[in-house]
């Protein structure tokens, strides 16, 4: 059991070094350790679910490991990571360097306050439990995590068909790209020629200014005033033109990058792999539409599915198709496979998204903070995915999750997920349509 944890820890370490911090120098090993620890314990939770289904290890030891894992994860997510985030943010601000620790503690207390307040509008506070019990903490973590999950799922649901299917690709020829590149270089040449004029005028003004200092008397002063005025007016005019041209060159550059990436995607779609992904794209878009449909129904009719897909599938096959087979045996294996697939794809998807996000926004100053924020997101995501996965497992396996996590209103979480998912989806779809239509108008 512990060996697997060490394995996961090693994997998290490697991922950190190879993928995330490829271009940066690791100076604070604390960050790396915290990230790997979060990753390791999150993966252990999934491993425990798999063990639950397979029936490996004894029931009591499983329970023990669950509890241990949960305590550690909550400790890390609520105490350790936010504290370090506050610490690193404060270290970046030069003014507060002296009393770093003090300010970090202050930040942490603010975080705890908001975290607690988060529980108020939701139906999770039940008088049976004390203040600092696991249920309180998990419920709040669950809320944040479920929101994140819905966000990512919504985004993925729209992005996935768009990326995979080649239907959306504009037709880009080499000639288009060359024409744009030519325009870009012409603009750069214009900028260069104007800057040359500015530099030369400035140099002449400077030299004339020196000569002017030698000229004394009334007329000398008047001459110097008038000539410099016209010089500087001319300069500011050219400077404005240069600014406009620079803005144009930036836009042309971005358009060229866009065209190049579209061209590469077109080439990729012609390969075998590309065609395979294209097909997958159609499949996924159908799946996404079905999911949207289900989410809407759940909200409108105010119901949460009682049975999981596996048992329902088996029921359907047994009742309607008349195929007899050993329900218990097959349900265990199928649910194992299904849960395994869900886990692996969600981990992989999350890591890829986090990496892309990290590359997009990090710099050498803020990389530590961002990695810690990512570790926090990852931990919360995994905890809440365990919560939601309960729905996909048959009844006999749900018991341990219910037992360990205490009495939570699981239905609430599912409803909440559906709501956020739909909201995000609609926002993204309208935004994408707007974006696409404006893009087309620019090109035509």
């Amino acid at each position: 059991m512990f060996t697997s944890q060490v394995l996961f820890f090693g994997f998290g370490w490697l991922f950190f070094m190879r993928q995330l911090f490829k271009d940066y120098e690791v100076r604070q090993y604390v960050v790396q350790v915290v990230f790997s620890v979060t990753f390791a314990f999150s993966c252990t939770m999934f491993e425990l679910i798999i063990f639950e289904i397979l029936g490996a290890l004894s029931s009591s030891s499983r329970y023990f490991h669950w509890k241990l894992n949960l305590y550690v994860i909550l400790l890390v997510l609520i105490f350790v990571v936010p504290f370090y985030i506050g610490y690193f943010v404060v270290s970046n601000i030069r003014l507060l360097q002296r009393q770093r620790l003090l300010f970090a503690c202050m930040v942490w207390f603010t975080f705890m306050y908001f975290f607690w307040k988060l529980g108020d509008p939701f139906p999770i506070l039940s008088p049976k439990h004390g203040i600092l019990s696991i249920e309180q903490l998990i419920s709040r973590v669950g809320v944040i995590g479920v929101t994140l999950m819905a966000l990512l799922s919504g985004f993925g649901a729209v992005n996935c068909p768009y990326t995979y299917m080649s239907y959306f690709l504009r037709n880009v020829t080499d000639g288009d790209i060359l024409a744009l590149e030519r325009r870009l270089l012409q603009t750069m040449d214009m900028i260069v020629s104007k800057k040359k004029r500015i530099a030369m005028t400035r140099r002449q003004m400077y030299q004339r200014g020196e000569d002017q200092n030698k000229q004394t008397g009334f007329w000398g002063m008047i001459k110097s005033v008038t000539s410099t005025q016209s010089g500087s007016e001319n300069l500011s005019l050219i400077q404005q033109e240069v600014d406009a041209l620079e803005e144009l060159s930036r836009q042309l550059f971005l358009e060229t990058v866009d065209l190049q990436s579209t061209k590469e995607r077109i080439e990729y779609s012609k390969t075998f792999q590309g065609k395979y992904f294209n097909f997958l794209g159609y499949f996924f878009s159908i799946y996404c539409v079905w999911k949207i449909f289900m989410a809407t129904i759940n909200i409108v009719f105010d119901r949460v599915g009682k049975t999981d897909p596996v048992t329902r599938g088996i029921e359907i096959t047994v009742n309607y198709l008349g195929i007899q087979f050993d329900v218990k045996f097959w349900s265990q294996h199928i649910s194992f496979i299904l849960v395994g697939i869900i886990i692996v794809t969600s981990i992989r998807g999350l890591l890829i998204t986090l990496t892309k996000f990290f590359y997009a926004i990090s710099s050498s100053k803020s990389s530590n903070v961002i990695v810690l924020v990512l570790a926090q997101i990852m931990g919360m995501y995994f905890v809440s995915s365990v919560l939601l996965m309960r729905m996909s497992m048959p009844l006999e396996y749900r018991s341990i999750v219910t037992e360990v996590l205490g009495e939570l209103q699981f239905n609430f979480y599912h409803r909440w997920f559906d709501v956020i998912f739909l909201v995000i989806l609609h926002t993204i779809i309208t935004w994408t349509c707007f974006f696409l239509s404006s893009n087309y108008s620019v090109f035509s």
Partner: protein
Amino acid sequence: MCAVAMHARTEGNKFPRGDIFPQNTQTLTSNMASLDRVKVLVLGDSGVGKSSLVHLLCQNQVLGNPSWTVGCSVDVRIHDYKEGTPEEKTFYIELWDVGGSVGSASSLKSTRAVFYNSVNGIILVHDLTNKKSSQNLYRWSLEALNRDSSPTGVIVSNGDYDREQFAENPVPLLLIGTKFDQIPESKRSEVLTRTAFLSEDFLAEEINLDCTNPRYLAAGTSNAVKLSRFFDKVIEKRYFTRDPSPMAAFTDRKRFNFKSLHYD
């Protein structure tokens, strides 16, 4: 020298330039017309301080609000070649500050490659407080030199670094390390030894400075002398060596034919 200058100006054209120059160029003084074109790239990871450096070199002022460079930003420095000698001549040096990182998407890389045409010199900038940025300089120089491969052949094998390539390299290099003031006194010698190795690898001079402090490049300092020597070398290679014109003209003509082929 006049003939060389004329020839250099016409063969430096990749596209017909007549319609680009505005009409009121003629109103400028004669100094403008005699100044010829020299292009120097400024390369390095994002965040090392290229934009601040270029601003310092061209405006002699510190850049107040550095922001992330999108695409490429150009600035111009007026340089007196062979200053103080009777052969003194004024040149414009264009400093092309290309933004981005070595690990960017290939679409970004192929768009960036547009700026690497007919380069006369390269300034490699790295951050003295970040070792990775120094290591990435090898990849940066390969990216820029690959694009601009002259007929003598800068052969590259899978991005592996090979010192002999730089020995034959016709393009002069200069190494600049930034954020010098942020290194504590105790670590200075260690950092300077590391950069010395780096400059040996590139067969280039090195300058270590802080872009927010103009006194590092004040006239008369050894840094200013190195900078001036580098620019002199660039100009010399461009205009005054044995046969630069046929080689550069060859690559330009080759590129022009390639482009016209696709344009139809």
